[in-house]
């Protein structure tokens, strides 16, 4: 263990880390899916004219946003002992990011020009068609880069799942280090894998942003 860096130790650390990477990706994809759907629902519900609907939802959103993700994860995990940790992780990540994504949707919906609503009304389109055929297709186009950026943020926050014993990539590296005292190589691999996954994705999002702008 004298060398600062050994390629052999790095190679040994890789298999468990890649297994953890699979879990990291899974949590990100499922979490993003939950956040994207729930975020849209929240954005739509908050447009309701009834304060009896908007006030409680607004309060819930503020609550989720004002408390740390880590606390939410541990709290829900301990409150629901019979639910598998990975499920808790995906749902909490999804709900947490839904509150942020709902703002992206709101901005996207607000950016649809008033003339579009007026033309839809002049054609007497039913409310559901106005949303499904006119407003949402235009709004969601504008929200894609914002949603993509939050998905990348979520990806980078998956190591918090460590706290609820989900063996994602970071936890896998920790465990490998604990067994073998090889931390440098293991954690370096984790950093590289995060970089390898999130940098190209963020480039993609930026390109999307430029194309839709």
């Amino acid at each position: 263990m004298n060398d600062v860096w050994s390629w052999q130790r790095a190679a040994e650390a890789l298999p468990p880390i890649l297994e953890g990477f699979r879990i990291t990706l899974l949590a990100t994809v499922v979490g993003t899916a939950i956040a994207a759907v729930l975020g849209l629902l929240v954005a739509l519900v908050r447009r309701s004219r009834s304060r009896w609907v908007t006030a409680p939802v607004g309060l819930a959103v503020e609550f989720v946003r004002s408390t740390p993700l880590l606390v939410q994860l541990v709290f829900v995990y301990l409150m629901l002992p019979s639910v598998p940790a990975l499920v808790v992780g995906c749902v909490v990540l999804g709900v947490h990011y839904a509150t942020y994504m709902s703002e992206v949707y709101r901005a996207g919906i607000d950016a649809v020009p008033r003339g579009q609503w007026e033309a839809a009304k002049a054609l007497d389109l039913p409310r559901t068609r106005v949303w499904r055929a006119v407003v949402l297709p235009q709004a969601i186009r504008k929200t894609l880069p914002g949603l993509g950026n939050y998905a990348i943020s979520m990806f980078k926050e998956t190591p918090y799942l460590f706290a609820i014993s989900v063996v994602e990539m970071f936890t896998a590296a920790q465990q490998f280090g604990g067994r073998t005292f090889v931390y440098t190589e293991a954690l370096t691999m984790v950093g590289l894998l995060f970089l390898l996954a999130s940098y190209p994705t963020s480039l993609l999002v930026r390109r999307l942003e430029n194309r839709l702008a």
Partner: protein
Amino acid sequence: MPETTAPRDAVPSGTAPAPARATTTVQGAVPAIEFQGVVKRFGDNTVLDGLDFSVAKGDRVTLIGPSGSGKTTILRLLMTLEEADGGIILVDGDPYTHEIRGGKRVEVPEKRRRAVRRRVGMVFQQFNLFPNMSVLENIIEAPMHVLGLARAQATVRAEELLDQVGLADKRDARCTQLSGGQQQRVAIARALAMDPEILLLDEVTSALDPEIVADVLGVLREVAETTDITMLIVTHEMQFARDVSNRVLMFDHGRIVEEADPETMFTSPTHERTQEFLRAVLGD
């Protein structure tokens, strides 16, 4: 495209063709549109202050007047894009947004508003086509989802209309690929696809380059000649107003200051405000 050569903003001369249609107001007939004491305020600004006027079925009425005189507000009230603060609007004798019941002015339920709104179509200054749809999809959207037509049926009608506005070859184009004049012609086809009894034209050429204004006006002239749709027109195209309409209302500060057939209005207006306005618009 027929009649695309009419000079824009030409000073009306005695040799211009007389309007084809005489005033169709028939004693006792129910007017297509009737305003009774309509009030509209925006904040402290009262745009319409107890406006009364009516439009007979098949009339082509042009509303002229300086900006802020309430012309566009009248169209927007008829499309329920704005809500009147007072008074009653009737379409074919049916109360539209409000009615008097038991001596009180009450809102008409949305379901009945929709039944009335369905008879009214509108073409906007900024076209307002749906950019996420193709030209054809723009036109068949409402016939399919409002009138309940099958896609094939709606498409046949849409193709006829596209042919009528001279854009048959743009059927599958994205709206964003079209020029302003072409977009406006699609918007006209889209409104006509709903077979409106009343068509509202809100400064439909104001956003267009001068050289393509004639195309759009040509299309509208043809609509005026081949249908009996009641038309309410807000425009600065005085030659068009003269060709198409059979009645011109001059507005100032939310009131009708003068009303005449286009020939009289444009050649010998009597009210001082009308004379001033026409001088400014026609550029003498």
